[in-house]
């Protein structure tokens, strides 16, 4: 068997595997375009014969998808800004020094990364309600998400800082820069890409966050899209085409970012904590 033929065969198998793997996504988009009766047809059709494009407009209106997505966006932006502002400096210091204290700090940070949100929400909820933070539900969720995701960010960005040669910073110091100046003018610009990719990863996670928002945001006008989707899916729902249309509107922006930045995201992920 020649190399070229082997490559073609492997590529075909790979495409087939990817198609099987991505079938749930395809099924979401197809179901969203079906009419109420086509959805429950047996055997189900795998291609929408009569696509209902108007479903997106009607779901957008009736479920107030715009407001939900806006809340998700606000929460994700808030959490990412907080994490980037606080976490970048922390990652920098942890990358610059190697001693026992840094090991202890990293160990504690890694331990915090693993605490399941659904278990931490009980004390956070009770504590926040005593502090009165629950009167500002989106702020409360932003704080909780920031605490949950910051360890992951710190570990990823630390790897980015480690790849910046320390000699460059030392040279800047010799040339009369302050530590402050060297950090902002030399180190930060060089690690920019790593920080950006990590921030995007954190953003996508925060955009889909559910446990904290579900537990802490009671007022419907502040709820993010994940909570909206959850309340759309009652126990005995049969509006699957509408639900899938909602899900498609929710997930398509994230998929678009992912496809555009796929290569960078994959390399960012594999260079950091998860190695």
């Amino acid at each position, binding site marked *: 068997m020649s190399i070229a033929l082997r490559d073609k065969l492997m590529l075909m198998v790979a495409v087939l595997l990817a198609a099987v793997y991505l079938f749930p996504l395809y099924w979401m988009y197809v179901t969203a375009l079906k009419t109420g009766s086509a959805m429950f047809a047996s055997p189900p059709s795998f291609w929408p014969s009569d696509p209902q494009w108007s479903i997106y407009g009607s779901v957008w209106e009736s479920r107030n998808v715009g407001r939900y997505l806006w809340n998700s966006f606000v929460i994700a932006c808030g959490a990412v800004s907080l994490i980037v502002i606080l976490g970048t400096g*922390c990652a920098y210091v942890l990358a610059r020094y190697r001693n026992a204290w840094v090991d202890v700090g990293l160990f504690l940070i890694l331990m915090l990364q693993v605490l399941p949100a659904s278990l931490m929400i009980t004390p956070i909820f009770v504590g926040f309600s005593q502090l009165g933070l629950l009167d500002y539900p989106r702020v409360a969720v932003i704080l909780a998400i920031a605490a949950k995701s910051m360890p992951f960010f710190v570990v990823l960005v630390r790897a980015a800082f480690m790849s910046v040669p320390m000699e460059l910073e030392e040279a800047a110091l010799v040339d009369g820069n302050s530590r402050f100046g060297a950090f902002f003018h030399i180190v930060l610009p060089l690690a920019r890409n790593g920080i950006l990719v990590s921030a995007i990863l954190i953003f996508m996670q925060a955009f889909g966050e559910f446990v904290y928002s579900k537990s802490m945001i009671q007022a419907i006008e502040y709820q993010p899209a994940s909570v909206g989707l959850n309340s759309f899916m009652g126990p005995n729902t049969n509006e699957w085409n509408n639900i899938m249309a909602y899900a498609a509107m929710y997930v398509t922006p994230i998929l678009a970012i992912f496809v555009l930045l796929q290569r960078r995201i994959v390399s960012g992920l594999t260079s950091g904590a998860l190695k």
Partner: protein
Amino acid sequence: MRRLLLSIRDGRGFDIGLVSVPLIFLFAMAGLPLIYNIVMSFQEVDMFSLGTFARPFVGFKNYITLFSQPETWPILGNTAIFVVASIAGQFTIGFALALFFWTGFPGSSWLRGLFLVSWVMPGLVVGAIWNWILSGDFGVLNFLLKESGLVAANIFWRSDPNFSLWAVVIANIWLGISFNMILLSVGLSAIPQDLYEAAELDGANVVQRFYTITLPMMRSSIGALVALGLIFTLQQFDLFAAITAGGPNNSSNVAQYWAWDLSFRQYDFAQGATISVIMIVFVMFASVVYVRSTRHEVRG
């Protein structure tokens, strides 16, 4: 005062300032709740005492009540089944895919990247899609299974107590394949290629090469991955909320969902905190294994 300012701008104070603010934040937002959780598990908490710190201490009463409930052991058993089945499925499929893409052909790295899609999707969306795929009467999975002759009648994945836990396991395996595959790919690409060439010259076949080179070289990656899989499956909450909500009759309930359900559905915060403490001890144990197996990486 001037010296302090100078040190913050240009000295050790700069580093200490950068690192201490985030650590204080993390301590306040993650460390304190952890401690508070333990305190609450020894207290009597109800709707009236929720707003005050001075609650009566009851010793181990919460723990005793918890283990005297009939559903406790089945739910812990479900948690174990969920974790073991999910990790086994994710790891096997992920490893097979990683090995397949590792052979290297045009387009392999791009196609492999597509598999990471599930990693960035909101858990609720994944749950909603699988909820619909697994639907009893009209689900496409039942249709495919019946057409291929694997089952005779529709399986009611979500409402049959024998299958409800497996419905979530299937969705979770789909979700977890991505990170298993990508991490194993990283591990595979780190194996020096000349080892295989030498073994091939010595006449080792594919299976022998896999068992004598690939597996031993991957030992630390696999250890880290299984520990990480344990951590991630114990964090899985969204799929339960979106597919079965722990039902029917707790047949698909697991500890991390139950803890939330007790606190926020039944307003029994003390019991919720008690389960949380027990599970967090488990997770901490897994993470010590994980940190130990990646320690040389972390030190860089």
